[in-house]
């Protein structure tokens, strides 16, 4: 068990452009941390630096109380699960799991105990004599996890382990990995580009973009209080809708006009006077668009939109529509029989609105 600390870590491949720019991060012992971001954002590079598969250009990585910059991968006491499983095709499942232990010169008895124990936990008992090619994707991934846990590592690294699985299996494995973490309580760093995985799995989420940490917080906090437009748009599914608007501060009241027709009062927000007349992004989560019932009375300003697309999900529907020339998505309970082309009235939950600066895209 160990905490992991990254201090001003940077990585460059060509000496010019940085794939990872000055990342500092503290991961507590036993914590499950998810690194999430779009492809090419540097999250996998970061993970590979922790694993020792990439050199660290600048900065320090500390596991426990040991700086591991110059420690070879095999001596870092970490285990990694790869996206495409990376099982040795020529070895049986047993040997796949035992290989690392054999190289560490453990006794045969000890190896047998550990492999059997891991096989028990992961339900691989009957597969131990098979070769990887005789296994399904989910089974292979389980073996890859098994190979990692037999080593009793201080830190677990997962590199997009579920990307190659189909949706149903992915959900199942997600739960299995979480249960395993609750059982073994090993510090875990998990890389994914899938925000659902990030939200559901992490104790903490690190949102990375362009080689930089944008936000490091709990899933709920990131969902509720994204620090910038990127994080707001990346976390949450369907994504947050962004509408360009103009602020109007007069007599202590704050209004935002989205286009000629729509002007919302947002006086509950605190903004300094110099925002008057500035352009901002208004961010609205899908569930913060509400369908106005004909009988309903509300103080919120109504907006009228035409449905471009209706995606029924069973218990709810996603409405796609245009508001002030921006594409928006609303999540509504489906008691209605609304279809594409219908005109509907909605209002916004103003307490939950997000405002972002137009140029810096930071949260206001």
């Amino acid at each position, binding site marked *: 068990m160990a905490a992991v600390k990254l201090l001003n870590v940077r990585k460059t491949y060509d000496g010019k452009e940085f794939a990872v720019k000055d990342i500092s991060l503290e991961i507590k012992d036993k914590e499950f941390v998810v690194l999430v971001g779009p492809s090419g954002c540097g999250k996998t590079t970061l993970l590979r630096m922790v694993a*020792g598969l990439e050199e660290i250009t600048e900065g320090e990585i500390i596991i426990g109380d040991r700086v591991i910059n110059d420690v070879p991968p095999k001596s870092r006491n970490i285990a*990694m699960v790869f996206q495409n499983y990376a099982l040795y095709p020529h070895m049986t499942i047993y040997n796949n799991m035992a290989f690392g232990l054999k190289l560490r010169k453990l006794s045969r008895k000890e190896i047998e105990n550990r492999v059997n124990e891991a096989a028990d936990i992961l339900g691989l008992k009957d597969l131990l004599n098979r070769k990887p090619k005789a296994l399904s994707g989910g089974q292979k991934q389980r073996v890859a996890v098994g190979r990692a846990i037999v080593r009793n590592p201080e830190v677990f690294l997962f590199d997009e382990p579920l990307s190659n699985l189909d949706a149903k299996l992915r959900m199942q494995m997600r739960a299995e990995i979480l249960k395993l973490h609750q059982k073994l309580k090993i510090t875990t760093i998990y890389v994914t580009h899938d925000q659902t995985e990030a939200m559901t799995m992490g104790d903490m989420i690190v949102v990375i973009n362009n080689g930089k940490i944008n936000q490091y917080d709990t899933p709920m906090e990131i969902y509720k209080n994204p620090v910038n437009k990127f994080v707001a748009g990346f976390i949450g599914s369907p994504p947050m809708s962004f509408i360009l608007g103009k602020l109007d501060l007069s007599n202590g009241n704050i209004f935002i006009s989205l286009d000629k027709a729509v002007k919302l009062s947002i006086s509950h927000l605190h903004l300094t006077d110099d925002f008057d007349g500035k352009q901002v992004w208004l961010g609205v989560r899908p569930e913060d668009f509400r369908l106005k019932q004909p009988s309903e009375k509300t103080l919120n300003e109504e907006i009228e939109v035409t449905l471009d697309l209706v995606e029924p999900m069973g218990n709810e529907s996603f409405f796609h529509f245009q508001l002030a020339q921006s594409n928006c998505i609303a999540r509504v309970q489906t008691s209605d029989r609304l279809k594409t082309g219908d005109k509907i009235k909605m209002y916004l939950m103003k307490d939950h609105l997000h405002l972002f600066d137009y140029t810096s895209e930071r949260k206001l």
Partner: protein
Amino acid sequence: MIKKTLLYFVLLIGAVSFLYPFIWMISASLAPDKEIGSLVLLPSHITFDNYHQLIQKIPVWRALFNSLFVSGLVTLGVLIFGSMTGYALARLEFRGRNLLFYIIIFTMTIPFQITLIPQYIIMVKLHWTDTYLALVVPGLMNAFGIILFRQYFKSVPQDLIDAARLDGCGEFGIIFRVMWPNSVPALVTVGILTFMASWNDVLWPLIVIRDQSLMTMPQLVTLFVVGGRAESQLGVKLASAVLLALPIIIAYMFFQKYFINSASSSGLKG
């Protein structure tokens, strides 16, 4: 139908023209001396006279052993060193890697005859002439093996190598415990082609070996046939040719599938 018949006819002619001399060689080596000139395939009776004479005249068994020993070591060397170099070129990052690779490719374009004399001089300076070292050491590495291994290793997923590294493998462990078992086709291809090239080589042994007890089979047979010691006895010459071809034929029977694969996968004629 006509098309098919025509095709088989052409193939038949091809097969006969390739096989006839070969079969004739075997049958003639088993025929009594005076029947050899008649080009018939079945001698009136089979005799091993030619082989008896051959064995008495030259140390055939010793040469056979020498050839197997030398070709075996050379093949093993090419597999080991070729895969090591190929791995480094495919998977390790170091300065000048590509330049090195281009130089290695370039060496393939230099005819052996050009390096022959410098190589001989090196052997003389090392006092290696008339030793196994002269036969084995220069062959332990070749560009073809390196290039084939490099190409093959490039197709192995990086994750597999990373996994091995995290499991505790060093570079040698990765090559021999992970790459090798997953590169059997490359190993077989390089192995077969190297073994055949080494087995069939005459020129180099002729230059560095004079001691008859160290001579390889093709060298000994060549010297025997063209060097006058066969005393123009065609039957004995043919017997020596049969013995020369035999090991490759036996190997071919066992590894037929791989021979064909290796010829097609390397883009070379087998």
